[in-house]
């Protein structure tokens, strides 16, 4: 398996504008392994769409950025894959990677202590936490980015996620460089108790200062963005774009159905639902995300300085 002592990042992507096709070697294998959608299938031969069950040619699947050509399903991507997809080749420089969870509650659920649980995830997901943060460029324009990964404890937010995101926000504020967060999260990390909940307040406080500085903040919601992340920094962006079909909600449709004892319309708590109800600005196909963000950065960049 992977060498855990090797920092998960920085990553040097093989491709810029056009995304995920063309990767190779161990790097690509790790990335593929981290994506549930393709885990059980031999790479580059055939992929079964996790949504419509259509059997797709692996090469086409990759070429289409892991979006099903038949039903439009956008499969989940790892942080590493997002970085390759969105940022200029090799432009991503991570910071904040020397932060690790400290288990402040000495948490044990069933028989497993939290540190062992984390170590398992580090091994399985090939990354050290549910977010990576760093500087990057998009079409030459500088940004500060935080990219979440739902493969690591469901993308849940504990102290490290909150701290890294806050560092990214503060960095963006200091350097007056636009902030981009790619969100995906199941919510707060329960194993860190109230420390986890308070990261919502911490990131929101940092964003209040970013806003006072007049630095733009764009958030990309990917499947799923729920709970404490959606109810804190993700919802506070100036511009919010979501991928089609992404689950976007506070409680998530299953919890709502349980609570209400009734079946809900199929689009409940999705990106499209959020758009209809005025919570986000756009639903954009994965292939349009990068050009859209670049356009936004360009227009914000042409604004009169403060």
């Amino acid at each position: 398996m992977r060498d855990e002592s090797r920092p998960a990042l920085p990553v040097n992507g093989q491709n810029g504008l056009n995304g995920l096709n063309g990767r190779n070697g161990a790097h690509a294998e790790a990335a593929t392994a981290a994506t549930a959608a393709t885990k059980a299938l031999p790479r580059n031969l055939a992929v079964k769409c996790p949504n419509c069950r259509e059997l797709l040619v692996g090469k086409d699947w990759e070429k289409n950025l892991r979006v099903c050509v038949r039903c439009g399903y956008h499969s989940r991507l790892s942080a590493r894959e997002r970085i390759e997809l969105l940022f200029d080749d090799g432009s991503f420089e991570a910071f904040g990677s020397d932060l690790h969870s400290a288990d402040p509650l000495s948490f044990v659920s069933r028989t497993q202590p939290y540190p062992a649980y984390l170590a398992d995830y580090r091994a399985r997901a090939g990354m050290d936490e549910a977010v990576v943060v760093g500087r990057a460029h998009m079409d030459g324009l500088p940004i500060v980015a935080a990219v979440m990964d739902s493969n690591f404890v469901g993308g849940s937010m504990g102290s490290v996620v909150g701290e890294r995101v806050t560092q990214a926000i503060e960095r963006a504020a200091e350097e007056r460089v636009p902030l981009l967060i790619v969100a995906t999260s199941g919510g707060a990390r329960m194993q860190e108790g109230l420390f986890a909940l308070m990261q919502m307040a911490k990131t929101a406080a940092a964003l209040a200062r970013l806003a006072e500085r007049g630095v733009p903040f764009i958030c990309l919601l990917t499947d799923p963005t729920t709970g404490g992340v959606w109810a804190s920094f993700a919802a506070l962006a100036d511009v919010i774009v979501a991928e089609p079909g992404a689950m976007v909600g506070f409680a998530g449709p299953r919890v709502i159905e349980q609570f209400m004892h009734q079946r809900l319309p199929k689009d409940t708590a999705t990106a499209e639902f959020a758009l209809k109800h005025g919570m986000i600005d756009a639903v954009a196909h994965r292939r349009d995300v990068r050009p859209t963000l670049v356009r936004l950065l360009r227009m914000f960049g042409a604004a009169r300085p403060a």
Partner: protein
Amino acid sequence: MAYDLEFERPLSDIEKQIHGIERKGEKMKAEDRTQVRELRQRLDHRTDEIYRALTPWQRVQVARHKDRPYTHDYIKLMCDDFFELRGDRRHGDDRAILGGIASLDGKTVMILGNQKGRDTKEKVECNFGLAHAEGYRKAQRIMRQAERFHLPVVTLIDISGASPDLEAEQRGIAGAIAENLQVMAVLRTPVLAIVIGEGGSGGALGISVADRILMLEHAIYTVASPEAAASILWRDAAFASSAAEAMKITAPDLLELRLIEEIIPEPRGGAHHDHRAAADAVKAAILRNIGELERLPVEELLEHRYRRYRDIGAYTREPIGAASV
């Protein structure tokens, strides 16, 4: 208030004995009276003993007790005047969050808090205390008004969680909570939050970003309800008591973790046994804390508040734990 929780069985037994004797009424003899006096002393003693050693899960029972004073009770008992500010000016008036301008010993503050209903009618009216987006927006309106008039804000937290229903999603519960976190972080007036019962998840956080967080002795404050945590982490909601233990949700635990500033002691047997005493204690804590916070220049106050949250987190430089797979 009677002792009616499971772990209070020894107390209710004593109470029953007392009632049995007292039922004699006029016919009570001197030795009966003596016995009652002794039983009462024993009751007090045993109550103190039991409440000193409450497990986290027992505290959850106390924090959720149906007779525990609610925000509305505290407002009635603490304030010499109160004018309720209703509505979010956009959609509705969420009865699960109440607030308004209040006078505490002649000192004007904005006070707001979660409201659980007591009787069925009230419970339905306030959605069993599960707040909606419009409740958080009303709270924001009240807090911004407090800022405008340089009034300190006091929030009373008592909510199991924001409403997990379709309407909440449709009206943007997540965004409403997120906005409050941001607004409260930079509100230019002192903010004091007091967890009086259940502080549950983002629903509680949405009105509790503050300069200081106080908790009643038997209140809880948690990232998720013990039941929810158990059903996810133990895959069985029956492990709620284990989750309550593991998540460190009690006032003493959170004080030790330095996530709250102060514990307000409750009357013997919990706040529900003496609303008046509980309200007096809360009121005294409010006036003292607000007095202290108001002495700070506002820029200093805001810098402290920012640091208070900025510094929350527990990390190491090196990863801990070894993989089991």
